[in-house]
């Protein structure tokens, strides 16, 4: 009997110490950790090797959402295929839309590639704009600032720690952005081909020019015939490399790289990909790999 009570207590009261942050993608979990330090316990529903558009509403995600204090989503319909089920099935009122425990990163920044028309004939388009905002480090400052405010609202006892955590992060981050921008100066104006329309924010930041995408429509796998057309069209603009995210299938980019005799560059895209263990490494590796492809 006593054992049963202990067991129940252990089940009912999982560690109350930290603010439980449940992020849909690894980059926001990493940002929450930068700001909150040991005041938060942040986990991510997906890894950098998974396509965040296509995730199953797995039982383990529902169980984690059940106990979360703060659900961090990218928004802009990135998670529309699975997150609503996780929210509903969780039975957790704190993380439903409109509650303080639900935070959308895309609401904090200016979105690029907002479609002029909405039609599924155009492929996997997002009405609000391109959701892959984490590829521009400057967005981390804006998202982080709003996130720190939200964390302070949810956990007022540690509000000062979150404010200080963000201030500290922002100072380091600005210095790093200046360093990356200086290093990446040779990339300005360089023509690239990308596999999926995942990089408008990175291109905007570093001044790269996207001359073609391998996917005929966002989210639609390229056929060989389409790849050949892209290669012919792209030949005139002389791309220096083809870039893809770690989670994208390797074949299309490798095929193009072979045919067009340019390097195929695998960018981490999110925290947790090889050589991108944290936010700093994510951009460090991104900049180094892009520079490496110029040589």
């Amino acid at each position, binding site marked *: 009997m006593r054992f049963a009570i202990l067991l129940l207590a252990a*089940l*009912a009261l*999982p560690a109350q110490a930290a603010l439980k942050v449940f992020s849909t993608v690894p980059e926001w979990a990493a940002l929450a950790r930068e700001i909150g330090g040991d005041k938060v316990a942040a986990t991510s529903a*997906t*890894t950098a*090797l*998974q*396509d965040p558009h*296509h995730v*199953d*509403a*797995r*039982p*383990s995600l*529902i*169980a*984690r959402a*059940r*106990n979360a204090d703060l659900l961090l989503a990218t928004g802009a319909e990135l998670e*529309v*295929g*699975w*997150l*609503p*089920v996780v929210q*509903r*099935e*969780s*039975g*957790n*009122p704190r993380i*439903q839309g*409109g*509650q303080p425990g639900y935070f959308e990163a895309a609401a*904090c*920044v*200016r979105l690029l590639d907002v479609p002029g028309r909405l039609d*599924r004939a155009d*492929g*996997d388009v997002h009405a609000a704009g391109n959701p892959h905002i984490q590829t521009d480090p*400057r967005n981390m*400052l*804006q998202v982080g600032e709003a996130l720190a405010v939200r964390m302070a609202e949810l956990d007022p006892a540690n509000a000062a720690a979150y404010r200080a955590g963000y201030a500290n992060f922002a100072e380091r981050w*600005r210095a790093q952005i200046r360093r990356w921008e200086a290093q990446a100066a040779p990339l300005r104006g360089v023509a690239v081909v990308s596999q999926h329309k995942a990089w408008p924010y990175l291109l905007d930041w570093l001044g790269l020019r996207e001359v073609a995408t391998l996917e005929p429509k966002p*989210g*639609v*796998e390229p056929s060989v015939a389409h790849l050949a057309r892209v290669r012919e069209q792209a030949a005139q603009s002389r791309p220096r490399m083809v870039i893809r995210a770690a*989670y994208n*299938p390797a074949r299309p980019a490798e095929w193009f790289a072979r045919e067009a005799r340019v390097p195929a560059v695998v960018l981490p895209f999110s925290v947790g990909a090889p050589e991108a263990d944290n936010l700093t490494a994510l951009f460090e590796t991104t900049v180094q790999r892009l520079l490496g492809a110029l040589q």
Partner: protein
Amino acid sequence: MKPVSLFALAAAGALGALPALAADAGLQALREEIAQMRKSYEQRIEALEKRLVQAEATSTQARVAADQAANQTTRAGEGKANAFNPEIGLNLQGALTKTTRDPATWTMRGFVPPGEPDEIGPPRRRGFTAQETELTVAANVDPNFRGYLNLALTPGNAVELEEAYFHTLGLGAGLTVKGGRFLSGIGYQNEIHPHAWDFADAPLAYTAFVGNKLTAEGLQLKWLAPTESFLELGLEAGRDNSFPGGARNKGGSGLGAAFAHIGGDVGASSSWRGGLSYIATRPGARSYAGVDASGLATTVSFAGDSRTAVADFVWKWAPDGNAKERSFKLQGEYFHRTEDGRLSCVERDTSGACGGAAGRADSYRSTQSGYYLQGVWQFMPRWRLGYRHDRLDSGTPSFGPTLVATDLPQLASWKPQRNTLMADYATSEFARLRFQLARDSSRGAGLADNQVWLQYVMSLGAHGAHKF
């Protein structure tokens, strides 16, 4: 040496060193000036950098503020009544079927026919057929409730209310209440709509034990345990207007169901869910139209207890958990049903083996079971192959002495089996084309039916997220 000359020498030396001294002082002054200048420039550069950072910050702030203002103005512009329109989605499904035996004669020997046949079970007709067209409408009602409607438009030009329910959004403590007509939470596939199935038709076990799907009309209470791993418990109570219930005209709850599900991940690549469910119902006069051994039409009805236990399991695998390229899904469910009550047989003719129009009644008890196991392998993006095995065991019902086996040839014991192969191609996640081959021996010994399906499934409009 004379002292004078010594002095003179010293004086000359000192005089000689004077210009050097003077030059040193000038250099020092210059250095100081440069150092000061540098210092002041550094300060000015620092100040400029600070201003730059501030300007950057204010410009992003201004940008965000401008965007927000722009958003608000567009929102204000859109502030028409239709901005609150619910999400509307449509699923189109149709098929071309070819069968070696007439679909109208399809029956599952050994099992009570599960009510009126519908479009999601075994093939109903040969040739082109529009299957169910599902129209869904959903929206949040207010901060506490969400509403959902699913209408099935059948090829017979009928509108069927598949689902119409509300559920709570924020009860807390992991509780959710659902009310209305809804697909029961028992088993695994029951809650999944046909457009998301991996095969063109329902598993035979679903056809035999719940009439392709168990619909509850009442209330569901679901609780998710606050544990690290997934544990969900559910209770349902409601009207038993669908198979295996039926025709019970009494107050209170005719259908009771309970289910428990557990699940989790194994590494990054695998995830699973398993569960146990129980369905209890007391049909008052659940009847089917049969024939007796002499070919005369009969109406057979059952009143009593019907209890079904279901065990379900599903396992999904994808390399690194990324199902975009390759994935595998293994799914199986086992049903076990015991029915205990009275069976009556009424001849539609005035005379006949089954007691004529007056009919006969007898005690009846049956124990039946069945399972299906299916695997679906996505071997490259958009292409999948699947295999499903169905097997059921009707057992031997015990009745008599008033009713005899020749009165109820439908219930003669049999072990239906079916093997199904499937290949499908999805042009996107919203459109799927499927080819399916099946060999079905439900009808009885020597009556195997070969079935060929060509099916399309298309989803348009707002498309709700899918369950696991």
